[in-house]
């Protein structure tokens, strides 16, 4: 029983980070229809950005996190302007291929710049875990969950309650009408991509200190992000959040009770089942299957 509780807690913490990865990608993939294979690389960028800000510039921890997120947004914006905008008329496959190229280029640049040795990112939280009865949880992980929740909440507010958010949703629902209404389409595209990338960078910045920073850390992150997006439904922020939590818990329970070797299989099987029986995502109300 205690094991179960610990597994659940672990799963929720993990799931919170999956959610953060997911909502960034659901904007980019769900709204912009960009198959962004480089999403995980922004995650990596966030981690290395934090490391660099701490080690090279000497910023205090929370400022370093912020700097990494801003870096993610800037690189994302750059990417959109230089690579995606000229290709906007091309097919989704062409764009996907470009993002594969970006993925390879970014990862190997990280390898060149930082070397292959994993970097430990120091954080100001105490290492001794908090103990609540049979449960143990490290303070830094609590921070990650809290920060993720805050970012998710802020994103939701942005999308649902601000004019910018309305403009974004309008652009991706019906571009021509939005343009006729005076929405600056080009800028919205750039902002959306930058925002999604910033969220991925935030996930990396938060998780970097919990785990380690190394060049190939983004590969698995990309895959989990896509899974979460599908589970939650394309473009569905709340769905991505819940999907992320669900995936985290399912993985933890699978690893704990079935077999640790097949841990990732849990996620895959979950996806297959969801797609077979509820293809619009677990939480979608509207049907968007194509």
């Amino acid at each position: 029983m205690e094991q179960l509780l610990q597994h659940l807690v672990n799963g929720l913490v993990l799931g919170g980070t999956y959610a953060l990865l997911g909502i960034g990608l659901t904007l980019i993939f769900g709204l912009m229809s960009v198959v962004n294979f480089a999403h995980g690389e922004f995650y990596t960028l966030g981690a290395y950005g934090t490391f660099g800000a701490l080690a090279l510039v000497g910023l205090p921890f929370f400022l370093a996190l912020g700097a990494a997120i801003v870096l993610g947004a800037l690189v994302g914006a750059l990417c959109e302007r230089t690579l995606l905008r000229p290709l906007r008329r091309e097919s989704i496959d062409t764009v996907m291929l470009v993002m594969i190229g970006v993925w390879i280029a970014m990862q190997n640049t990280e390898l060149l710049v930082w070397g292959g040795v994993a970097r430990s990112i120091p954080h100001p939280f105490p290492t001794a875990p908090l103990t609540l009865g049979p449960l143990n949880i490290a303070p830094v992980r609590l921070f990650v969950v809290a920060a993720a929740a805050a970012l998710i909440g802020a994103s939701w507010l942005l999308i649902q309650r601000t004019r910018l958010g309305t403009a974004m949703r309008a652009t991706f629902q019906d571009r021509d009408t939005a343009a006729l209404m005076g929405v600056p389409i080009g800028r919205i595209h750039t902002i959306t991509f930058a925002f999604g990338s910033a969220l991925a960078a935030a996930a990396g910045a938060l998780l970097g200190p919990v785990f380690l920073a190394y060049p190939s850390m983004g590969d698995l992150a990309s895959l989990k992000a896509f899974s979460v997006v599908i589970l939650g439904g394309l473009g569905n922020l709340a769905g991505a959040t819940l999907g992320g939590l669900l995936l985290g818990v399912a993985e933890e329970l699978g690893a704990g009770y079935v077999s640790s070797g097949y841990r990732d299989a849990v996620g895959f099987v979950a996806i297959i089942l969801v797609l077979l029986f509820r293809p619009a995502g677990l939480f979608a109300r509207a049907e968007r299957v194509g």
Partner: protein
Amino acid sequence: MLTRALATFVVVLLALGVAPTTGDAQAPIKIGVIQPLSGPVAASGNYVRMGAEIARDWLNAHGGVNGRKIELVIEDNKSDPKEAASAAEKLIVRDKVPAIMGAWGSSMTLAAMPKLEEYGVPMVVETSSAASVTKRGNPWVFRISPPSEMEALGLEQYVDKLGVKKADFLAVNTDWGRGAIQAFGDMLKKRGVQVGVSEFMEQSATDMNAQLTKIKATGGDTLFLTTAVEQITLVLRQGQEQRLQRKVITTGGSSSPTQLIKQAGAAAEGSYHIVFFMPWFPEAMPDGKLAKAFVGEWNKRGHPFEGLTEGFRGHDGIATIAEAVKLAGKDEPKAIRDALWKVSFTGVNGPIKFDKDGPAGKESGQSKPSIFVVQVRDGKVALPDFLKK
């Protein structure tokens, strides 16, 4: 419409075909090196490469081998067996190397091995630990790293002193991890130690809490850990978070205790590590002077100290090949292969001499490397407490 495309195709082929190949008199002796220089284990591959470069420079500073300089031709196997095989092919056919060192991981090494037989070129295996490498009946393979069975034997004498009564295993889900669980499990059972659970983690996994929760529930006193240093860091940290209080013994020699202390901090305290090189007290190595000089040169070049526990493999691999070339008198593959059987000298790890291993008539060579145990105490690497008594 195919015109342009065909032209491209032909141009590419020609480019590959007419690129100049070297081959002139008074040429340096070329030694091929295949390592994972990109991908998830890029750090380790690069450490081995750095060690190899030190060996090359030392040899050349002392006049080379048989009066000729040593040149390393370095290829990246990208942690992919297909690439390892391609790299071996390219080295043998295009660069005409008479000997190779590689290829770090066991599946990369196994994938390159058929090429050795196809072209008759020997390879010195410097890291791979899978038993099958020397049991396949490939007479062109010579290994200086220990297979997991040898490692387990090396620890056997300390099992009682360590006070291991019930052990659990946590290993990376590769041939290395599985092989270690097999070998150490067998050894422990022979000594009457109870074996609890064996858990696995994917090579890229970062969250091992599920496995640790299961291990915590078994009530064992020792955890055997086999994986790369990054995952060891994460396991130790997460073990600390879960208050997993037990002895930790890492196997495989890639645990880089220095890096662990830096990155896992207090979580690493008290852990034991099986290593094949002790750069913290090089004088204790079989050839103390050589070991000390190697550490000094490594530091002089500004390489990270934590890489020494793997970098020495590169040095010993190249030194072994060089020794064989010296004995053979020429840089011809078959002569080098025959000379490798006669090699007997001391590298950074210790004495290197090959015994026959594998099916009769087509044996591979396996050396008996030295195996050491160290412990993290008071935030520093020290000889284990049980040895001081």
